[in-house]
């Protein structure tokens, strides 16, 4: 086994999604030269891309298919929440640069909270179903944030 693989594997061991963590990190060209902190940063980057993509998907593709003005407004709000999640992850990267790992954890938690807000917005409007695709994307962002939290725990130790 190469040294890089070992670092990735041992880093991912502390997370709840080992397989996903390993494959996500291995597919980034920066991983082979990264230390644990670097791997955390890469994973946060994966989260930022994911959240931004969801924000765009909701505001674009999904919104284009609906005519109902209430639903359109809800989608707009939801898209904004995913953009805010991406922004919280931007703050996480700043914290990582400063080696302020606890603040990094704090900001990851916040990033993870925003998808809940989107789900709640749907719940607040009677008769609106929470779209399956948003549910899937919510789970996906939660998984990435969970992995970041796991790596951060390792850095704090």
């Amino acid at each position, binding site marked *: 086994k190469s040294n890089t693989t070992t670092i990735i594997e041992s880093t991912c061991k502390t997370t709840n999604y080992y397989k996903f963590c390993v494959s996500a990190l291995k597919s980034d060209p920066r991983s082979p030269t990264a230390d644990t902190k670097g791997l955390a940063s890469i994973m946060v980057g994966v989260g930022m891309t994911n959240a931004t993509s969801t924000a765009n998907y909701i505001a674009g593709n999904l919104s284009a298919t609906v005519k109902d003005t209430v639903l359109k407004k809800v989608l707009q709000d939801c898209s904004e929440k995913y953009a805010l999640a991406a922004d919280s992850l931007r703050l996480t990267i700043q914290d990582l640069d400063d080696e*302020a790992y606890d603040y990094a954890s704090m900001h990851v938690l916040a990033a993870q*909270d925003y998808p*809940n807000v989107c789900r709640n917005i749907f719940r*607040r409007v009677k008769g609106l179903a929470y779209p399956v695709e948003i549910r899937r994307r919510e789970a996906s962002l939660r998984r990435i944030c969970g992995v970041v939290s796991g790596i951060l725990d390792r850095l704090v130790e």
Partner: protein
Amino acid sequence: SHHVYKRLTQSTNTKSPSVNQPYRTGFHFQPPKNWMNDPNGPMIYKGIYHLFYQWNPKGAVWGNIVWAHSTSTDLINWDPHPPAIFPSAPFDINGCWSGSATILPNGKPVILYTGIDPKNQQVQNIAEPKNLSDPYLREWKKSPLNPLMAPDAVNGINASSFRDPTTAWLGQDKKWRVIIGSKIHRRGLAITYTSKDFLKWEKSPEPLHYDDGSGMWECPDFFPVTRFGSNGVETSSFGEPNEILKHVLKISLDDTKHDYYTIGTYDRVKDKFVPDNGFKMDGTAPRYDYGKYYASKTFFDSAKNRRILWGWTNESSSVEDDVEKGWSGIQTIPRKIWLDRSGKQLIQWPVREVERLRTKQVKNLRNKVLKSGSRLEVYGVTAAQADVEVLFKVRDLEKADVIEPSWTDPQLICSKMNVSVKSGLGPFGLMVLASKNLEEYTSVYFRIFKARQNSNKYVVLMCSDQSRSSLKEDNDKTTYGAFVDINPHQPLSLRALIDHSVVESFGGKGRACITSRVYPKLAIGKSSHLFAFNYGYQSVDVLNLNAWSMNSAQIS
């Protein structure tokens, strides 16, 4: 930054919350996990309500305090944001403690907060939004001029007792004023600072107000109220022409852990608060809430012309239980607060927005006589998460017992005469969070006494009795009590907001408030029941009883 990391990781508990959560509230504000205490910097900005609060990101006990942040458009449903203020520089490296927001005349909000410096001295700092076009004001920057106010040898301020700046107000001389809680030996005081530009602050030689003997004044609040009507007034207001304003000074007494207020006049020339006759700013002053309630703070809601009060309610369970359930502390439902027509007390009432959570209404009690010793169950309501309003009418007031002259402490009367002790009139009221066979219940009730023999003056006592609230032994089950300034010839109203482990009770349409925390073992969820009762010697009429099942608020 390494220092920050080391400081924050003095973790007290990293356990994840337990899955079974019978005591988490459904419509009260609480973070997803961990410790919360004081509400901070409440405000409305561009139509969005902001609540910051003292929060421990690392555990369910106090420590590692940051300013957590949530926003809302209705004061009931809340969206979380990343913590807004956390230790980052020498002037707050050991903690970011409580403070307040001020909206400047150009509309820009700023925050004054207490920082703990490397010498563990308490200093006052300013933070302002990084981006004013972000309606959520998610990121805050701290001024390089911090600390703006600090104890030193010249000003003689007690460096370990100098905290909790208020919302600032603008004087006639165009200078800002702010007060900060402090003490010198046993003297509690509100130190005044003034400033032209909000950045360079000068300590006034005299405090706004002080009291010898009451100890540390925490979380002061100072605001005007209009003499007539229930509308709120902006904090810097001098009043409209012909409008008479009074001022309220509120302090949180560190010694007793209660919030007290006095009503009086603000002398703008001398910068002195003068309490009205009958008021003294110490532990004898009236309280916002006679139960568990602390570190409260108001703000002026410019969108709805009202003043809103936030307050923190701590747990009454053991620290071990708090760690086990993974959280500690709730905020009470925000209350509209205004001056009673008498000018002698404040009235508080849950903001109307909470009524939007009401669902199915039960009206099974109307013009019903509650005979001596009777109890009526209110069916059809989710009793663990409900809003109840009941209106009692007492007929034979002359049958009331005469109050003993020595009975001046309402809490003492309530705990000495528990709910099983019959008097002429009372106890009558509600039993909430009750198990089917009353192994557990929390009772909120009235007793009416004659002020003297052959007198037609009466004393109305309101009690909240937690002594039978749970089969579990090690909770704080202190009984609470308050006198309610109402004439019992009129109907007596009692409202209770019941939410799993909290009961907020309002007597006499908000003339007396009692908040309690309880942790039943049997009366949880669907096994929780609600009763109206009368254990006094005389019958009492229930003119009306409305109960609503409450939806959960979205507070993630």
